[in-house]
């Protein structure tokens, strides 16, 4: 319980909690981490920044014993502040040394309550009696000191995402973690929930907890961390006190070059291209259910759909892309009713769809890049005649699009699963934009993309808007919506609420279901 010792002023006690020295890890020919050294002071919040594939997760996995480094050492301070080398490749050793990790995807058993989830795994396996009361007292003590509140007696399946995350953190603290690693902790939270989380973290660091948090949201990194370390291509490329940093400096460090800022110019909206009138979708879960929503998207307009994940975004995306049949209501594209929506009819009606899960829904990984580029236009006489594929035309089309949209990889005849995530997204963009769609549905179009690729997506969407298309942009990244959208609608529990302005606080309140 090292973090219980109160530190009156954390800047006075410069004792090191964790030291990584010269860590390297290769996977085949890929160098995931190259000689990375990092120190974490006691009571400090260190933000670990970097694009996808920069090596953040690999580094943390080596710290936590999931991966065995090729070279380098990890030292962790004990309760008295003395550094001890950590035996590598043993998660149990990391746990015992007081290192806790909260993953982006929670590892909780949904059918049992929070208390049991927290104590699960730290109980001796071969004992019949568990001392639940003692465990409960300990957890309540942690909750009181940290402010991380979560109902302990309710099955975790019924808790909100924010509460589940707090249960995960409590689990780490219950195991006496003195060092806490948080992997993209705010990805699933409203802005207000994120603020509360960071307040709680601050409170815990006063008690001596040291925190590493992995993020790519520059805004929160600047607001909540003490120090910033940036990884690029597996190497540590910079480290600085947060007080000395600004957004531009960090972004340049992450990318290695200036990222072009996507500039949106004001534009008068045109005629409506998509209208949903009282559309309901009966989904299997909350995330694919819509409750009688009305929505109009105009030409020359990007409509942003903000909201916490799982509030009906899938339902809305499915109905616009034709995957779900509305149980009630009408859909109009370009003033034309779409009586029986299906993916095929929606494509023909001029809707371009960028799916949320690009690997699962966007491409057929075993088929070639060229084939994936024509998969939505198999009726097109340019692609086939009398049921036989025109292979030369397909090849030429693919080469043209790969060039125009900068799709890089082992070539257009290679299986599309060999492409990187960013290049798969470029393949999908190429397929969608080359048909000059009237409406574009972009569902989480930049999730998991590096900043350069994300900026490219934004640029293409703005270009389409300029050309006269309407865009529905569904995103969990509020900053992205604030930057690109002309109008913002918040989705909550299958309902749509229009935000009056681009005000972060107000949108956050609507996301949380409070009257704005």
């Amino acid at each position: 319980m090292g973090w219980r010792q109160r530190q009156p002023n954390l800047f006075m006690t410069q004792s090191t909690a964790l030291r990584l020295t010269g860590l390297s890890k290769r996977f085949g020919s890929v160098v995931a981490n190259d000689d990375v050294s990092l120190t974490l002071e006691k009571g400090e919040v260190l933000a670990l920044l970097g694009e996808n594939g920069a090596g953040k997760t690999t580094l943390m996995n080596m710290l936590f014993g999931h991966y065995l480094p090729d070279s380098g050492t990890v030292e962790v301070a004990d309760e008295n502040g003395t550094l001890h080398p950590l035996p590598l490749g043993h998660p149990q050793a990391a746990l015992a040394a007081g290192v806790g990790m909260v993953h982006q995807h929670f590892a909780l058993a949904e059918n049992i309550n929070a208390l049991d989830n927290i104590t699960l795994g730290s109980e001796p396996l071969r004992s019949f009696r568990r001392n639940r009361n003692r465990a409960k007292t300990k957890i309540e003590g942690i909750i009181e000191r940290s402010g991380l509140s979560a109902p302990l007696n309710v099955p975790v399946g019924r808790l909100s995402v924010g509460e589940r995350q707090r249960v995960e953190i409590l689990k780490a603290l219950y195991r006496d973690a003195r060092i806490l690693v948080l992997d993209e902790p705010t990805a699933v939270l409203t802005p207000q929930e994120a603020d509360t989380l960071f307040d709680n973290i601050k409170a815990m660091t006063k008690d001596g907890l040291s925190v590493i948090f992995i993020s790519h949201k520059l805004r929160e990194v600047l607001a909540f961390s003490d120090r910033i370390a940036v990884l690029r291509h597996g190497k540590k490329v910079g480290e600085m006190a947060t007080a000395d940093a600004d957004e531009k400096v960090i972004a340049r460090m992450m990318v290695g070059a200036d990222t072009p800022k996507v500039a949106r110019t004001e534009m008068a909206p045109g005629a409506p291209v998509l209208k949903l009138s009282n559309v309901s979708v009966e989904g299997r879960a909350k995330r694919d259910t819509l409750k009688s929503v009305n929505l109009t998207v105009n030409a020359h307009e990007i409509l942003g759909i903000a909201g916490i994940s799982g509030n009906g975004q899938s339902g809305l995306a499915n109905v616009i892309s034709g995957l779900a049949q509305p149980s009630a209501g009408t859909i109009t594209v370009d003033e034309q009713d779409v009586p029986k929506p299906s993916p095929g009819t929606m494509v023909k009606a001029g809707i371009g769809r960028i799916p949320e899960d690009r690997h699962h829904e966007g491409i057929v990984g075993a088929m070639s890049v060229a084939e994936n580029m024509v998969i939505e236009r198999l009726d097109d006489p340019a692609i086939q005649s009398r049921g036989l594929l025109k292979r030369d035309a397909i090849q030429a089309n693919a080469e043209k699009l790969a060039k125009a949209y900068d799709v890089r990889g082992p070539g257009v005849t290679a299986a599309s699963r060999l492409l990187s995530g960013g290049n798969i997204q470029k393949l999908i963009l190429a397929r969608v934009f080359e048909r000059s769609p009237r409406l574009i549905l972009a569902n989480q179009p930049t999730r998991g993309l590096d900043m350069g690729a994300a900026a490219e997506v934004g640029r293409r969407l703005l270009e389409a808007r300029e050309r006269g298309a309407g865009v529905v942009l569904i995103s969990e990244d509020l900053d992205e919506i604030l930057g690109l959208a002309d109008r913002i609608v918040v989705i909550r529990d299958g309902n749509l609420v229009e935000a009056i302005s681009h005000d972060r606080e107000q949108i956050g309140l609507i996301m949380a279901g409070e009257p704005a």
Partner: protein
Amino acid sequence: MIRIEPRENPSRAFAFGIPILSAVISLALAAIPLLAAGANPITAYGEMIKGVFGSVFAVSEMLTRATPLIFTGLAAALAFRAKLWNIGAEGQLYLGAMAAVAIGSGLLDISGILLLPLIIVLGAAAGAAGMMAPTYLKVRFGADEVVTTLLLNFIILIFLQMMLEGPLQDPMGLGWPQSAPVLDQGMLPPLMDRMRVHSGLILALVLAAIAQFMLARSVWGFKLRAVGENAAAARHAGINVRRSLFGVAAISGALAGLAGVSEVAGLKGYLTADLSPGFGYTGIVVAMLAGLSPVGVVIAALFIASVFVGADSMSRAMGVSSFLADLVVSMSLLCVLVGGFLAKYRILRTKGAKA
């Protein structure tokens, strides 16, 4: 600790070499029971090769045995490409055979030249019909087609016995449960004088070539591959997944039905309940050996037919049990499946850390 990793770029030679190497290893493994049975494996395999390639008659027998396996192998391979697990080729084979004898034995008064094409078309249609109910249950209710197609085999077999002792029974058959013979105009002509190999083989080879071409070059094949590899993405892209599944189900059933037509109208001339010694199930083995490629099906069917015919001939010459043939076939399947796995993945030994 053992770790399994996908191979990044398996070479072509590797992909083709592995099945051949697997076949060789399976023969080596089968030498063990041969030794146990008291036979000299070298002589035994010599007899086996002689039994397959030693004479025109031997080759003819092997090709005769391969013919139904090409049909059922294609039936399985095409369905499996779309991830439609048709295990019911055995039943569909009998549906095709029943249609063939029902029409071919003179039920309809069809003039000579039309009878054979009609038998082929209606036999295929009967097999296709056998796949409709399982496919409907799959797309409508999510019923597992492995279970439904498999169980349908038994239903069809019992139905067959009922028909053979009822409406389809040969009035001249002295009460045996067998059908009336197919009229001469309805028979698939033999390919050689006094040999059993018949033109059903030509039909099978032509269909394999068409299947290979359509799979790679047609919109139909494109959709089928997309549905099989990633149905969610296919659906999202506007491909009618249900229609694709029904289409391939019909074709798969039809091919299995043709196996029955070919056996009845090419070989036996009449129908009994033991027409097929499990050709439908062996077709699954053939398709897996072939890596679900239609051209591969032809090669795999020839291999399996060689093993069966060769082992039969060997067991007669050496005086060992003919069950050894089944053993060799099973071993070759196991070896090829393991080989296929090793071609796709590599197994690494790791020290210390968990994978």
